[in-house]
């Protein structure tokens, strides 16, 4: 059984009087421990798919199941609690809270748990250490470079040890060097810590780091390609 199961999903939006169909019966699986890149032109439904998996949006029809939990059937409050322990989300524009330090930003998901202050501190330090920012814990986002901000966002995404990490164009606002650092970090999280990672990207170089690449076009899965050496 796959970790993420998308079954016959329909999703449409209403823009003014026009109804826009994004998905019309999409079905796909994402395995546990995989590193999947979602590619496709703008408007193909990549980010919408990510939002559906994260429970940020609901399908018009069909079901989305993650780790055995039917996300598409949950209430708003159930989804919030579920996301806190199962989803690590990383945005293109980092979206760190500017009034909090790197440490405090990373600690945010842990505030929703029953962990003690000491346990939270240990976890935050570990997450910052994994992304190589242990010495930047007290820095505010404005004091960090773009790459460091994104690595802080990744630390925030992994600190609660989620079931799946979802990244929406994580290198979209980074220079080449920072992009490589972030991608290398994601690869390490997948290889060493067996994190299941789904990344939306336009960047072919970024997709090359993934074990599987899914191509979407107009809401349809048109190609599923495994990287060399991966079955």
């Amino acid at each position: 059984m796959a970790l993420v199961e998308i079954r016959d999903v329909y999703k449409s939006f209403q823009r003014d009087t026009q109804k826009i169909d994004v998905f019309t019966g999409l079905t796909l699986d994402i395995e546990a421990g995989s590193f999947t890149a979602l590619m496709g032109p703008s408007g193909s439904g990549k980010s919408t798919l990510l939002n559906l998996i994260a429970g940020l949006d609901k399908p018009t029809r069909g079901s989305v199941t993650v780790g055995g939990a039917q996300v598409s059937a949950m209430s708003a409050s159930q989804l919030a609690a579920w996301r806190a322990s199962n989803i690590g989300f990383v945005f293109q524009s980092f979206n760190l809270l500017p009034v909090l330090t790197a440490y405090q930003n990373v600690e945010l998901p842990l505030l929703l748990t029953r962990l003690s202050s000491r346990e939270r501190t240990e976890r935050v330090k570990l997450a910052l250490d994994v992304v190589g920012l242990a010495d930047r814990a007290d820095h505010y986002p404005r004091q960090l470079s773009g790459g460091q901000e994104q690595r802080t966002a990744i630390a925030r995404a992994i600190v609660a040890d989620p079931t799946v990490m979802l990244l929406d164009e994580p290198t979209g606002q980074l220079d080449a060097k920072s992009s490589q650092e972030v991608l290398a970090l994601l690869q390490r999280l997948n290889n060493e810590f067996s994190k299941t990672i789904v990344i939306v990207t336009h960047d072919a170089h970024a997709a090359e780091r993934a074990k599987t690449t899914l191509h979407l076009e107009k809401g349809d899965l048109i190609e599923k390609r495994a990287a060399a050496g991966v079955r």
Partner: protein
Amino acid sequence: MKYLGLVLANLGRHKLRTVLTILSVALALFLFASLRSVTTTLAATAQLGGARRLVTTNATGIVFVLPLAYGNRIKALPGVTGLSWANWFGGRYGDGKTFFANFAVDAESYLKMYPEFIIPDDQRAAFLRDRTGALIGKRLLRQFGWKVGQNVTLQGTIFPGEWTFTVDAVYTPSDPSLGDDALVFHHEYFDERIGRAGIAGWYIVEIDDPAHAPQIAKSIDDMFRNSSAATKTGTEKEFQASFATMWGNVSFLMSTIGLAVVFAILLVTANAMMMSARERTGEIAVLKTVGFSDRLLFALIMVEAGAMALTGAALGLGGAKLFYPAISFNGAGFLPGFKVATSTLVVGGLVALGLMLASGLVPALRAAQLPIVQALRKVE
């Protein structure tokens, strides 16, 4: 407690705005407490008066006098156990602009009837002995640096001329609402200086039983109904209340201004909270993505609003409570015993809670109901 850092960080986001908002609330509640205290002080003054004391005035109005000859006739009525009388003098001190309450009384009977005036025995005896002596409130002693034994001259306004008195005694009121800033002197001296006119501004009638008050008051007024100066007799409380009701419209005005100020500040605070929440639309969406529930975000924004409103309230109400005693405020003698009552602090606290609810509710509801995807689309 674990969310305290997040709340404080958000309050510190625009420090100047937060400080100004808190100061606005503080100022509003300081004014509210001050204006309400005027009303409560007037109400407390209206409650003054012994249950066994009646006051007889001219039926036409308090500014009209009564013949001194009425005294013996009133004293002869059944149920009357004591009688005293007084005249409003209205003199001014110093440059003629300094004013405080001053009146002539029949000293011996007056002090017997008013145990509320606490006077050292030797000073009391000295005052009763001295025809040109004066009994003053301890505030006047502090205010003008007077000393016992010194001469003080008032300029008469209703009764012209320079009136010099010797400060023989100083009183402390047993009830602060009585005031400690009056000067009283001998009616005998007053009557002599005005040419034995034989007038009394009002009579104070001591009766045997408060239950007999309506009957005795009626007897007094019936006795003088057809004379040249008809009387109006009531309990001392009614007499005090008649002064307070003269302030009636002022009290209403004070309350109205107080509420208007609070409402204006409510708009300021609500606007500040809404601006703050609107600026954070993207961050709220991010927090929801992380797993913060609608209910938790609602609570956090309400706590922020509450922190500002309650800090402002503590500053404003606490400031008012400490400020007025520190300057010995008594409204130039018109508000003796002025104080910020506990009830005012409670009402002010409730107003602050109302401010918190009214200013935080809309942004908190907006945050709770914010659709994540649309909000993130704006940010991304």
